[in-house]
């Protein structure tokens, strides 16, 4: 019997909370292919924003622009009040440390064990840590994703769900204020997907993080979202809560919730 996740115990996110991410009129093309044609969206502090849309609608590109992985053509991306499109690499790195990014396939470093994967990032950003402190932080973060027994495993020995959890642990070890999830439950079975969704909620509650969650998995969207936006043809087509959009007058919007 699997545990049903309810959203009833979740603290509603006030729209008056200061926005931590503000994307204004974002454009991005690859050759003649115009992917983003003026995306505008806001994420408030402590909020989970789910982004839906058809494949190729520019969801992943939007969050890659947010961390400077993809250079924007036009538009403004304010993160913590700073327009990251105007920053040089050193300044951008200072913002990047405060943002966690969970890649679709977790992107664990294949040549490193789980311990090394987690320590690799931490060692470079917390140089004052002793070996004992480093080890204890690695164990703590692994316990928070329920995988402390995997510490000496190599990524090739992990299942899809375990890889996602370790990827999340690697993200959490720097204590980010914003987490960007790129299809966190894709390729996972229903039970593991639910466990990942629970973990996302737990992290939001415990660490007070703000998140953008890109997903096609509607149960995940339902359980994790405070607000949902749907991308269509390079722009935000509609915005609302899960319940609002589920009852939308727009048939195309409703088709996501079937």
């Amino acid at each position, binding site marked *: 019997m699997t545990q049903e996740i309810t959203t009833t115990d979740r603290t509603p996110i006030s729209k008056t909370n200061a926005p931590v991410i503000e994307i204004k009129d974002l454009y991005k093309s690859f050759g003649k292919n115009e992917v983003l044609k003026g995306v505008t969206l806001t994420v408030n502090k402590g909020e989970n924003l789910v982004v839906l849309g058809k494949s190729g609608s520019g969801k992943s590109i939007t969050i890659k622009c947010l*961390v400077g992985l993809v250079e924007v053509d036009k538009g403004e991306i304010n993160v913590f009040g700073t327009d990251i499109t105007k920053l040089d690499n050193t300044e951008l790195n200072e913002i*990047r440390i405060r943002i966690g*990014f969970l*890649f679709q396939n977790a*992107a664990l*470093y*294949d040549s490193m064990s789980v311990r090394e994967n987690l320590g*690799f990032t931490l060692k470079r950003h917390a140089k004052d840590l002793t070996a004992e402190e480093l080890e204890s932080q690695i164990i703590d973060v692994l316990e928070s994703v329920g995988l402390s027994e995997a510490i000496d495993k190599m990524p090739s020995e992990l299942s899809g769900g375990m890889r996602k959890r370790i990827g999340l642990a690697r993200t959490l070890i720097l204590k980010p204020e914003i987490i960007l999830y790129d299809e966190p439950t894709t390729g996972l079975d229903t039970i593991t997907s639910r466990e990942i969704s629970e973990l996302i909620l737990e992290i939001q509650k415990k660490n007070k993080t703000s998140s953008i969650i890109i997903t096609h998995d509607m149960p995940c969207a339902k359980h994790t979202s405070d607000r949902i936006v749907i991308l269509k043809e390079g722009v935000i087509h509609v915005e609302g809560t899960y319940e609002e959009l589920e009852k939308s007058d727009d048939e195309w919007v409703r088709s996501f919730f079937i």
Partner: protein
Amino acid sequence: MNNTITEKKESITIYLKDTFNDVGKVTLFAGRFFKEVVKPPYEMKEFIKQCYVIGYKSLPLVTITGFIMGLVLTLQSRPTLAKFGAESWLPSMVALSLIREIAPVITALICAGKVSSGIGAELGSMKVTEQIDAMEVSAINPFKYLVVTRILATTLMIPLLVIYADGIGVIGGYVGINIHGDVSLYRYLAQVLESITFLDIFPATMKTFFFGFFIGMIGCYKGFNAANGTESVGKAANSAVVTASLTIFIIDMLAVQITDLFF
């Protein structure tokens, strides 16, 4: 007829454009290497690991090929020298051929196949699976960690492997001479050392630093710039071997010309 000529002209123009474009990108890539290599932090642990992988792990292959190079060169040269009654020159000829030309080029080509393709495939696969992006978003400079360490390691390790191959090749030559004759090791080595001068070793060793640099740089460039999709990993590895091998021959040709001019 006119259409065919126009089409051919267009395809040549596109090919030339792509080639110059690639040369430009490789130059920028090399420029970035020289900029990043002097800037701290220095990834010493990864550099030492790469030296071990590129240098130590190539030793068995270099040992076998070095030994065979010396042995075969001796066996093939013997009949020709015998015709002129110059068999006693065999140790000098083998040593000079190996040190000046054969060992550097063959070892570099072997390393282009083993090391450059390995780096191309490794970095290409990291690119495709977003591991390089993961470093970037964690505010870690992937160029410094992955590229600088590998290029430095190949630049240092290839010359050492070539020097090692020189030694093994000379031993192979000794075995080759003793298949048909009976020469003591002491006499053989004395003749080898007598025939080699500083000017034989210095230019030959200098060019191996360039071989090493380009083997590493081409492998890293191809892998780091691999397109998305698993197919591009194979393409990156293959292209790294072909380009690195060709570059070795071009460098060798230039090095020989420069050596002739100055030494």
